[in-house]
């Protein structure tokens, strides 16, 4: 967080658990982060680490059976536990969400025009039909969708265009924060680049802050100011994107970066093991079974968050050393990690 600026959204110790007969799945297990106005924050992690749940959890858009705890502070109010009617008023004009699969996110029986009309009539009932049209066309125009296509149906657009329509649909209400849940994962590389440049420019064109959720580190490096790395329901490292990528503090971040393929790659690298079971995650640091630098203390005690320069990290390698019991820094002996662990 750039010091001194009030965040748009402040998440404090957010927990989202799903109840199952076998026990609660701790999808988000105590996450704290802040997003500043006009800032682009990337949220990365493997599949199943809880990042989608986090994104939806901020909006309160969770499936039945999910329970949230903690705080999500927006304009001084806590969104967790807010009555759904109030929360619904915030969804759209204050907090927006766009999804991964644009192909199925638009109602096939409604024209694009109808989608916009519905959204604007819901939140700004004072607008006249003409004003609605004008605003919709203007936002769509900024996304590169021509007015001639306003009355067409969703199936007449390609995937990339549908995603742009979704973004326009979210931005037409001028939200302060837009959460993008893997917005380019199902799009090809060229279209992806276009969408990314749109998203990266949000702050200039619309003044909107962006939480960009993805598993693709390349996107984050390109488009984000800050990045938060998530593992097994917790944030393990967070800081300015450049810093984190050039000098990753957490072993997991390091391993993630090493696994990325670039033109220099000569040999494939993967992180041994599999993401942990979120119903009963490992004791201590959740990454310790797969961590090449694991110490004895990592298997016993949850790491405590340490602040470094402008970032923070949860790893015993960075301290606080005063809290590590004697002998705890000795390397952890483990058997070879099995490949197919029950995840």
């Amino acid at each position: 967080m750039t010091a001194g600026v009030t965040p748009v959204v402040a998440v404090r110790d957010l927990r989202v658990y799903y109840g199952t007969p076998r026990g609660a799945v701790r999808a988000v297990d105590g996450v704290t982060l802040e997003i500043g106005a006009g800032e682009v924050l990337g949220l990365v992690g493997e599949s199943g680490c809880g990042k989608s749940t986090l994104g939806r959890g901020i909006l309160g858009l969770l499936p039945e059976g999910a329970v949230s705890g903690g705080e999500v502070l927006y304009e001084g109010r806590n969104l967790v536990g807010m009555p759904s009617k109030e929360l619904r008023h915030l969804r759209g004009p204050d907090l927006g969400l766009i999804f991964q699969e644009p192909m199925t996110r638009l109602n096939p029986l409604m024209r694009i025009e109808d989608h916009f009309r519905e959204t604007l009539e819901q939140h700004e009932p004072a607008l006249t039909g003409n004003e609605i049209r004008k605003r919709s066309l203007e936002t769509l125009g900024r996304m590169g969708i021509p007015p001639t296509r306003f009355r067409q149906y969703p199936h007449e657009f390609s995937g990339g265009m549908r995603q742009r329509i979704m973004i326009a649909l979210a931005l037409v209400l001028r939200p302060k924060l837009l959460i993008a849940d893997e917005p380019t994962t199902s799009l090809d590389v060229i279209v992806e680049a276009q969408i990314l440049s749109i998203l990266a420019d949000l702050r200039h064109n619309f003044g909107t802050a962006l939480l960009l959720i993805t598993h693709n580190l390349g996107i984050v490096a390109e488009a984000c100011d800050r990045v938060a790395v998530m593992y097994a329901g917790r944030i393990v490292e967070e800081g300015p994107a450049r810093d984190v990528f050039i000098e990753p503090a957490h072993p997991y971040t390091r391993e993630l970066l090493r696994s990325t393929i670039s033109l220099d790659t000569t040999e494939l690298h993967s992180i041994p093991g599999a993401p942990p079971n979120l119903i009963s995650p490992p004791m201590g640091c959740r990454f310790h079974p797969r961590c090449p630098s694991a110490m004895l203390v990592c298997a016993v005690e949850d790491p405590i968050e340490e602040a470094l320069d402008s970032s923070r990290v949860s790893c015993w390698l960075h301290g606080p050393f005063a809290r590590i019991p004697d002998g705890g820094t000795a390397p952890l002996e483990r058997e070879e990690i099995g490949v197919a662990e029950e995840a």
Partner: protein
Amino acid sequence: MAVPAQVESVPAGHKRFVGLRRAFAPIAEARGMARTMLWLGAAITLGFVLVALLAPVIAPYEFDQFRTSEGRFAQLEAPSRDHLMGTNVQSTDVLSRIIWGTQTELKVVLISLFFSISIGVPLGLLSGYFGGKLDRVLVLIMDALFVFPFLLLAIVIAFLLADKVGQGIFTAAIAITVVYVPLYFRVVRNHTISIREEPFVEAARALGAKPFTIVRKYVFFNVVQNVPPLATLNAADAILTLTALGFLGYGIQPSDGAEWGYDIQRAVSDAASGIWWTGIFPGLAIVLLVTGLTLLGEGLNETINPVLRKRPRGPVDFSEPVESE
């Protein structure tokens, strides 16, 4: 939604059970209304099955018995101690006819279903998986048959067979078999086609698996999940068709056995005189059996069909400490 059956890693003897058990595991997880329907339907259906099996033991009289050594039964006698549901115009006991009728209905429907499935499912599988000319021809024939209203088709077939083969159980069974084959064919074929395009089937093909192996191991397992709910609901419908045939006089002959639809048809003329027991009881029997089968079928559908299945949920307690493995 398709589930790849991992049969390779399991010792040969357990192959089939693992797959089947996995297919039907959701039944154990059934909750709420689906569960109630499932068990209630199963109970009712089982009840009727038992009645059918135990008919010789529990029926007070034969289905066409109108006298005992003590003399002839009264005609159209109201429910009494000797005849709990009364007697009909031919002096036969209504209750006995209901019980024996259970046997008749279930017998015919089971035979027909067995044949419908034996013909419809394999045809659907082959047609769906291999496509081509065979598929086109079969689809055309099946669609044409499907166009006919079930009852009409059954009547026509029963009518035609009546001259050749004579009326009776056999004719009725054939009529019902023919009527429902297109249904199984169509459902199985559509499902096969959608599974055929699934990535895991493509992967199997890429690995060089022979077509019949693929059909047998992967496609069949997935498609067969559809059959129990469909068959149960189909049985319910078949009972309605069979009794309708009986009502119209094209079903089981009175000499072959008791049939509920036929009894109701006879009861129509009784109604004018205010005699209700000859018609109401067989009618209630039909309603109860069909309801039972439908509840069972719908219950199965709710639990097995992934679109409708509700994920079981558990309690959430934030203060609970982490228990590691």
